[in-house]
């Protein structure tokens, strides 16, 4: 009997329209936990890191963790692992909603997509019944149209993951969307699925995850739910305002990037804040599978439609980063990203970069005159119009669909692209949060905030408050946060649980469900193993460690005004220490003894 894990992998050969069900290697699963970790290991073993992301040799792994689909709180998460067309690094994009749990309940720990179909298909999974079906009529359809259509045929209970027009058109910042409005957003994974001609995956599951110790699981789970309810952040802040509550906090600290990081404070932040959202457009909460936190929002657009609402990152990307302070426009742009299947962070940030290119005279009026849209900072119609054009690769949107790095490069101005490893940075100016900047520079999937969320200690004071300007101890903090995050991602739980739960709590859940004997040391070692394996993949893919850097603006131009005025990021003071605590050499390559210690071949 297998506990926690479903024990099966579904391998789909798209080229020959065949599938095969394989047994999960439990020893390997224990070593890499599941989800992000195990998928990375399998991907690493099966795919040449030098693979061209859109070739048929690239694979896509959609993976749940041992706790996905269980009674553990916030356990609806799954991870998509592939090689990113945006960054050239490993991509692992996480999403919530209900799809991940349903996949697990259908009896699979993961799906491996390989090869390439010669025409549009969707994959239908109903427990052990699997079919690869024609999706010619769905190609070109928006996410809600696709999802409605498939639910109509296969029943309301069916959970749908799909791509929108952006993924079909190989937009390098295309997302995968499940359950209408939950996104595995980053690194262009939607385009990889599009390159394989897969429009959707529909899943229905009727099994139950087996527990090693039912009684103990019940006790541990109710204790963790209680901890989440009693914690100020997970019991109050996130349920009441969603992630959008961060808008004012981050702005008040003077690290809220404005106009493509030209400034880091705005007096208009409150107009796009969680408080304003709750007052003006919020309809209700929109929680994921078994989540007591329920941070997701459901909002009313200006035209009366009720749709999934914007997260903090999105309010920033389309809001302050484009200098737009119109919450209705931002909610609309967010909705369009969900419909066209786009990453909200990269889409908003790419529009912001295009606006700076325009205002600095690189992009000329004649370049965009056919589009009938402006590229001026502050234009609400522009964020809506360009989002559509990026999703369709229409007009000048075709250039923006490549992401801000390639866009700026085309104009000989890469320094205006606020990216790390070609992926757009999220909504925190690292010049005023030193540890978080180190996390940006070293994240294995390029510019990203959720590989080691240092905002938690440096701004929010969880689990303890650190001085955000200080460098002291930051390398060590970043390492532990990165390793623990790898564990949480691999277990299949939502990262937001970590505002209230610590390593010890995750171990209790994992051990009770699977009957394992992990302790603090061995679980963090598993996280570190995952981190190092991702790093090795990237090195073999040809990503130079010199890419562990930040845009020049953040290292050289002091923040011009606001509470963090005068600061730059001190990456070169932090990076050597980080390499050292990671057990890597001074150039950033993992040392042999580190790999031996972590038992990585």
């Amino acid at each position, binding site marked *: 009997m297998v506990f926690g894990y479903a024990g099966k992998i579904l391998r789909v050969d798209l080229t020959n329209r065949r599938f095969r069900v394989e047994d999960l290697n439990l020893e390997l699963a224990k070593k890499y936990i599941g989800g992000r970790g195990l998928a990375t290991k399998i991907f690493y073993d099966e795919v040449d890191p030098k693979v061209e992301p859109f070739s048929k040799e690239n694979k896509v792994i959609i993976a749940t963790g041992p706790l996905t689909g269980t009674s553990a709180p916030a356990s609806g998460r799954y991870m998509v692992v592939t090689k990113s067309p945006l960054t050239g690094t490993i991509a692992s994009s996480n999403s919530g909603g209900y799809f991940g749990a349903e996949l697990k309940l259908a009896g699979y720990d993961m799906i491996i997509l390989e090869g390439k179909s010669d025409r549009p298909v969707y994959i239908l999974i109903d427990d052990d019944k699997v079919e690869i079906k024609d999706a010619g009529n769905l190609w070109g359809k928006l996410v809600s149209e696709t999802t409605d259509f498939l639910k109509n045929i296969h029943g309301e209970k069916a959970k749908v993951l799909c791509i929108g027009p952006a993924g079909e058109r190989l937009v390098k910042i295309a997302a995968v969307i499940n359950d209408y409005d939950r996104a595995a957003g980053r690194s262009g994974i939607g385009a990889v699925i599009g390159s394989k001609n897969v429009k959707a995956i529909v899943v229905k599951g009727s099994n139950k995850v087996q527990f090693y110790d039912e009684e103990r699981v019940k006790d541990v789970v109710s204790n963790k739910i209680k901890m989440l309810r009693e*914690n*100020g*952040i*997970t019991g*109050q*802040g*996130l349920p*009441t*305002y*969603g*992630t*959008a*509550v*961060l808008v*004012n*906090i981050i702005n*008040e*600290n*003077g690290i809220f990037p404005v106009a493509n990081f030209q400034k880091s*404070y705005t007096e208009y932040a*409150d107009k796009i804040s*969680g*408080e304003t959202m709750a007052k003006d457009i919020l309809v209700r909460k929109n929680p994921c599978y078994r989540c007591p936190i329920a*941070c997701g929002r459901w909002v009313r657009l200006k035209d009366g439609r009720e749709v999934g609402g914007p*997260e*903090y*990152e999105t309010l920033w990307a389309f809001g302050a980063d484009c200098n737009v302070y119109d919450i209705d426009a931002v909610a609309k742009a967010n909705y369009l990203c969900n419909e066209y299947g786009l990453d909200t962070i990269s889409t908003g940030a790419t529009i912001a970069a295009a606006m700076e290119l325009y205002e600095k005279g690189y992009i000329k009026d004649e370049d965009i005159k056919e589009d009938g849209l402006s590229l001026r900072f502050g234009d609400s119609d522009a964020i809506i119009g360009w989002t559509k054009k990026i999703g369709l690769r229409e007009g000048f949107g075709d250039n923006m669909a490549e992401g801000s790095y390639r866009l700026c490069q085309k104009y000989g101005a890469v320094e205006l692209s606020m990216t790390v490893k070609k992926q757009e940075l999220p909504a925190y100016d690292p010049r005023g949060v030193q540890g978080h900047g180190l996390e940006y520079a070293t994240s294995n999937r390029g510019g990203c*905030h*959720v590989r080691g*969320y240092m*905002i*938690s200690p440096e*701004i*929010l*004071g*969880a689990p303890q*408050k650190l*001085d*955000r300007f200080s460098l002291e101890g930051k390398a060590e903090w970043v390492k532990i946060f990165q390793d623990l995050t790898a564990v949480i991602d691999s277990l299949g739980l939502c*990262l*937001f649980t970590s*505002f209230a739960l610590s390593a010890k709590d995750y171990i209790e859940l994992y051990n009770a469900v699977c009957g394992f004997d992990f302790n603090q040391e061995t679980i963090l070692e598993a996280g570190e193993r995952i981190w190092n394996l991702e790093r090795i993949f990237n090195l073999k893919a040809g990503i130079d460690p010199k890419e562990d850097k930040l845009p020049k603006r953040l290292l050289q131009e002091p923040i011009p005004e*606001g*509470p*963090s005025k005068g600061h730059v990021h001190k990456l070169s003071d932090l990076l050597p220490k980080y390499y050292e605590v990671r057990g890597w050499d001074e150039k950033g390559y993992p040392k042999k003894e580190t790999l031996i210690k972590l038992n990585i071949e």
Partner: protein
Amino acid sequence: MIKVKLFATLREGRQKEVVFDYFDGITGKYIIDMLDIKEDDVAIYLINGIDGKINDKLKDGDVVSIFPPVGGG
């Protein structure tokens, strides 16, 4: 003059912004008492955008921002 900005649930039943007359020795503690905010509800306390302590003496013209426990990402 001290400008006090309140956020999230601290706005319930209060204004977003409250202005206090400056006097020598005024602190955040005085302010939250006057506003009937419990010390436990103050998770983030900034003076001019920089972390402060509620017992720190304020200067004339300071801007104070007060948040309950909140997070996201």
